[in-house]
């Protein structure tokens, strides 16, 4: 996460306590059967969305059917491009590992293909994030076979 200048009221990460464990890694999801491909693709640096075989509706999160017509769905590789629909800067979170990231951006991003995803926007000063900002996916492995899509400003 990008460091920024502290502002009054920022909850700074707690000072390391001698003997305390090192910062925890980002939590890794345990994939549901119907979503295994979604997480493993992100591990390979690809963002997948589901597309309905019958009506063409696109969706995330992954489900076993199309939310629009209840038809069958297939995977489609997304461009990774999107725009920030809304965002917040988290300045207080007592849970690890998140407290070590403060302040950080949590955002809803509308993908070019339609679906909306929750994510972190990284690689930018949190105070510079805006609704409507163009972003692109950036992948991070969180286990041996699971990856996640973060977003950063599109250049």
């Amino acid at each position, binding site marked *: 996460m990008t460091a920024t200048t502290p502002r009054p009221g*920022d909850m700074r990460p707690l000072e390391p306590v001698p003997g305390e464990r090192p910062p925890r890694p980002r939590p890794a999801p345990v994939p549901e059967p119907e979503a295994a491909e979604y997480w493993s693709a992100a591990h390979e640096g690809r963002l997948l969305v589901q597309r309905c075989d019958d009506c063409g509706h696109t969706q995330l999160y992954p489900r076993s059917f199309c939310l629009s017509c209840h038809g069958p769905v297939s995977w489609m590789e997304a461009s990774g491009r999107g725009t920030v629909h809304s965002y917040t800067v988290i*300045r207080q*979170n007592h*849970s690890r590992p998140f407290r070590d990231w403060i302040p950080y951006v*949590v955002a809803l991003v509308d993908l070019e293909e339609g679906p909306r995803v*929750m994510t972190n926007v990284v690689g930018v000063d949190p105070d510079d994030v805006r*609704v409507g900002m163009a972003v692109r996916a950036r992948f991070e492995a969180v286990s041996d076979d699971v990856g996640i899509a973060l977003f950063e400003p599109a250049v």
Partner: protein
Amino acid sequence: MTPSRRRAVICGAATSDYPYLPELSEHAVHAQAADRALADAGLTYADVDGFATAGFFPMYSVGVAEYLGLHPTYFDETNSGGSSFEVLVEHAAYAVESGAAEVVLVTYGSVQLSQMGRRLGTGGGGGAGMPGPAIYDSLWGNTLVGNYALAARRHMHEYGTTPEQLAAVAVTMRGHAGHNPQAQYRDPITVEDVVTGRLVADPLHKLDCCVISDGGGACIVTTAERAADLQRPPVWILGGAHATTHHMNLSAMADLTVTPAAQSGPLAFSRAGLTPADVDVAQLYDSFTITVVLTVEDLGFCAKGEGGAFVQDGGLGLSGRLPTNTDGGGLSACHPGMRGMFLIVEAVRQLRGEGGPTQVPDARIAVAHGTGGMLSTGATLILGREEP
């Protein structure tokens, strides 16, 4: 003309002590509230044949019934978060109107503050261990506050709502709390105090967020016929409805600025045969200032996008457009985790003319609207002083 039928009323209501109860267990808070509501009604536990409550474990209502020594033949523990108690009272109304129950006791108890401190709302559980779809939005360190902040940011973007307008909600609630000797915070605050305060999750400041408390409440639902023999004037349950748009995943909420109140509100008003213009006093779940702005829009007190203007300049004050949260609300008086019961108790007090310094003159119709989860559920009750 009107076909003779059983009509549901609230015949007793009370809060427990609050906001800090380190000497009580969670179940003892239920019991204290139940004792007081029964005493208010002039009933005893022996009169109760139905019981409803909501908590965080399966079979919660059964456990609290055991603690209270009840053996009910109707029970309900529908948990929709903060809106649970509006749902439970709506269900209880159906139960007494259908004849499935005669006297339903609905209780709430929490010792959130004593047991957990002020951590609620600002932890990110991580999601790694959570089953099912909740993982999709929980990997990112978002918090409960952060979810409401995302809605607030989008509302600002679409409608130009300002931090000062949100702050006006907190300022008005604090003003009401100043008249409530039990309220957790009573000293007046200004808009500037709110907007210059510490940001918890932009754009929500500390004072945009509800307090964290211990406390509980209870009410008793029975038929108008039964209530006619009791000591308190009945409060009529004129209409109720509830709805949901999503659960833990805010990414699954179709529109961040439209809450389930947009469904439950019109349904409840329709069932009551009333409109928002008929409402004299409102008790609206104020987990965050933005929650109230969204709720007044979705219930139809103003158009979508006009909530900011509606709540500013004392719009929710005693002489404002819609006197709201006359006890000081969750923002200042008491928020033990699921505040819905407090909304009902305060609505009953207002309709019985027991509001004291914050009594809305001649209050005939009240709305109590609970919001649960991450703006996930909404439940509306329309209550009245007079027989419909």
